[in-house]
């Protein structure tokens, strides 16, 4: 009975979303406000029904109602409760419903928050949001319905269970975070379409769009970082980024979104680049839909994607629909979006922002090209050429380093035009620090990208430090404050600027972590109890092999003693080889899982994987990796998130107004 109610809610929501669009279209034509209010209410009802359907599915998962195919597929009785809920986004139809769910949350917030202040734009905003909802409602109603009953002529007593790889706290929050980012771009997109349709783009619009962008961009960033963290901690190949199509799918909108975070500052401060920003918003939103398409269509043979492909053409159609409608509108509004002002000089901060934008966009294109290269090569030459991580690294490392350089140069440039004197004054110290670093690294035998990356990192960090120092000093002089108070008030006075600098510090530290990858080393070996192996001055000795039966798996545990070159014991690593569902009579249902153990230092990780065990001979097989500087990726990530939060935090001044 309950599954039927869920399905019914989705049917109703589908119908109401069409009603919403019709009502609001008539309102726009006639100007009759009653039509608007009905439309708004219908829109809210669509969202509420979507919530309801999602809760129904969550409830079905919770109580293990295996009459529903989805529940039987992704959970079993033994699945821990928390993962019964996360199974909501484990499969295709559930994750599409979850997309709709998040979009509905955003829709309700956007409608309630702006219904008075943005009266003129709201009809269009709601039409756009509802159209996107309608698209997902079509999918969950007619293409892949999560409430479809189990097709079996017997009573299903237990389900198939959730993959143990997905039974992990990070994995539980990684997809929702990514979704919060992906889905969220719908709102700024809707406001942009509305602004173009109504030719109305005031300061309030700017503020609304900027805050939404910042928030969804933060969510997307957290989602991407968590994905890398999960891969590193759980997947056991020692890396955090593989340039997998699905990773790229989240990275592409992040790149254009980041470009937008920068160029929107120019629009806010100088009322320039409006046309360009519209293009960026449209592209970013399209890439979000395209990303969902890449994940869900199975067009790429990715480790993430589901194999069903009926979704492919529908998604692609929607992508083209968005592009055609948006760009047509953009074309008709090109005079409205024209800026009065021009960038005056190459050496202005505006131009710095503009080059940053170009580089971000071409980097996005590079990733796009690499991601679709297999499809393109198959279409053009008939052979499918797959693209490996080395290709993406080859292309993107130099582009990334140019971005790193611009991160340092940008803040040193002055608005409008940088004079020769101020250029010399501003660049003197950072450039000297950078050159000194380069020299020292050169003496220590570093070359190539490593040398460039560390040099640029020191250069950028110096520029940011100087920016902070300058601000603090001037406050200390003019306001007679001490260092800490001056620092605190400086940040509070201009949160977006200094929050931005902190984000840059995070990025630089992440670059340091990425660069550490060049020094990775690894070794695979088998050990009997008492035997030793060496890697990079470290000694690994297998002390003991033990076995243990736990509630839902069987574990082989290795005690691996780690000694440094002086013979001092550092730690004992405990990597495990686990077998989930070890009691299943069907060996194919038993699921091995390697539980890693990582010894973390500030300058390196020692990463141990228990690969296999030969119980007859008592040999355990390991892979050990030493990953220098990898922690700086995560530390940089935290700082990055912290900086964005500072920029996002509502200021007192604004909340009074």
């Amino acid at each position: 009975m309950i599954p039927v109610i869920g399905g019914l809610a989705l049917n109703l929501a589908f119908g109401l979303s069409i009603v919403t669009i019709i009502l609001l279209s008539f309102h726009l034509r006639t100007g009759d406000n009653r039509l608007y209010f009905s439309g708004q209410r219908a829109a809210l009802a669509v969202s509420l029904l979507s919530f309801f359907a999602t809760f129904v599915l969550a409830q079905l998962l919770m109580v293990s109602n295996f009459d529903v195919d989805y529940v039987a597929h992704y959970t079993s009785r033994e699945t821990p409760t928390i993962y019964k809920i996360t199974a909501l986004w484990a499969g295709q139809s559930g994750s599409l419903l979850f997309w709709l769910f998040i979009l509905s949350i955003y829709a309700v917030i956007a409608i309630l928050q702006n219904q008075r202040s943005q009266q003129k734009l709201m009809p269009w905003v709601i039409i756009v949001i509802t159209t996107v909802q309608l698209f997902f409602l079509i999918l969950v109603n007619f293409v892949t319905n999560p409430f479809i009953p189990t097709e079996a002529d017997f009573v299903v007593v237990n389900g198939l269970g959730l993959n143990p790889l997905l039974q992990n706290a990070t994995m539980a929050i990684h997809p929702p975070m990514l979704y919060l980012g992906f889905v969220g771009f719908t709102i700024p997109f809707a406001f942009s379409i509305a602004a173009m349709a109504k030719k109305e783009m005031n300061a309030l619009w700017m503020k609304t769009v900027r805050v939404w962008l910042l928030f969804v961009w933060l969510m997307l960033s957290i989602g991407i970082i968590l994905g890398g963290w999960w891969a590193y901690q759980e997947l056991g190949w020692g890396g955090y980024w593989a340039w997998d199509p699905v990773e790229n799918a989240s990275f592409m909108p992040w790149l254009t979104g980041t470009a937008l975070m920068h160029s929107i500052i120019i629009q806010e401060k100088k009322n320039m680049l409006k046309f360009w920003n519209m293009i960026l918003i449209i592209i970013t939103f399209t890439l979000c839909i395209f990303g969902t398409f890449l994940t869900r269509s199975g067009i790429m043979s990715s480790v993430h994607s589901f194999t069903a492909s009926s979704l492919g053409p529908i998604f692609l159609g929607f992508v083209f629909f968005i592009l055609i409608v948006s760009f047509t509108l953009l074309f008709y509004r090109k005079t409205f979006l024209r800026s009065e002002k021009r960038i005056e000089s190459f050496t202005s901060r505006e131009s710095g922002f503009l080059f940053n934008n170009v580089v971000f966009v071409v980097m996005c294109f590079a990733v796009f090209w690499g991601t679709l290269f297999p499809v393109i090569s198959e279409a053009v030459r008939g052979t499918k050429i797959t693209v490996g991580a080395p290709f993406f690294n080859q292309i993107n490392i130099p582009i990334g380093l140019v971005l790193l350089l611009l991160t340092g140069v940008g803040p040193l440039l002055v608005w409008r035009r940088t004079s020769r004197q101020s250029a010399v004054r501003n660049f003197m110290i950072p450039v000297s620090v950078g050159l000194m670093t380069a020299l020292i690294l050169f003496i220590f035998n570093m070359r190539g990208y490593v040398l460039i990356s560390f040099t640029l990192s020191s250069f950028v960090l110096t520029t940011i430090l100087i920016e902070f120092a300058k601000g603090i000093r001037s406050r200390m002089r003019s306001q007679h404050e001490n260092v800490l108070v001056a620092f605190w008030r400086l940040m509070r006075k201009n949160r977006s600027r200094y929050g931005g600098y902190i984000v840059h510090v995070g990025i630089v530290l992440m670059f340091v972590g990425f660069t550490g990858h060049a020094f990775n080393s690894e070794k695979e070996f088998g050990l009997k109890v008492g035997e030793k192996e060496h890697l990079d001055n470290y000694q690994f000795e297998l002390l003991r092999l033990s076995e243990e039966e736990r509630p839902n798996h069987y574990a082989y545990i290795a005690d691996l003693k780690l000694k440094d070159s002086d013979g001092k014991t550092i730690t004992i690593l405990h990597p495990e080889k686990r077998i989930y569902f070890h009691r299943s009579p069907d060996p194919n249902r038993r699921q091995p899982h390697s539980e890693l153990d990582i010894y973390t230092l500030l300058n390196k990780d020692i990463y141990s994987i228990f690969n296999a065990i030969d119980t007859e001979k008592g040999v355990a097989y390991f892979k050990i990796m030493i990953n220098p500087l990898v922690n700086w990726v995560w530390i940089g990530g935290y700082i990055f998130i912290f900086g964005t939060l500072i920029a996002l935090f509502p200021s007192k001044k604004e909340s009074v107004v």
Partner: protein
Amino acid sequence: MESKNKFYFAITGVALVVIFWIWYASTNPVNEQALVTFLSVEELLDDGYSDRVRLGGLVEDGSIQLDKNNYMTCQFELKEGDYLLPVQYTGIRPDLFKDGAEIIIEGVFTNGVFEADILQTKCASKYEGDLRDANSYNLEEVSI
């Protein structure tokens, strides 16, 4: 006006340099793993490629054999359509690698054996099993 033109030139210039760079990288891969041809097992057996290639298929049931002397090495047969290919792989085996698993391998075909150095499994978000297949459930038949 001139400054505006200069900007267009500069930006077009930057974009062109990068596009040239992408094209260069696409035609001059940095190493043999950057761009790899994806073949079907049939194509590989027919044409006898000696280059590094990538293949996809299923692990033939019951074919996985671990090397007696080194469990890091295993032999198995890759099945695609009606074709079977003997494969040898040394390295970490992904957790989902087992009979019937959908995998992707990369390596070189020499002397009748495909020597793979990359083995990836499709990361399914669930346990593969057909719902219509009663064996995949812990079921209690209901007598009708």
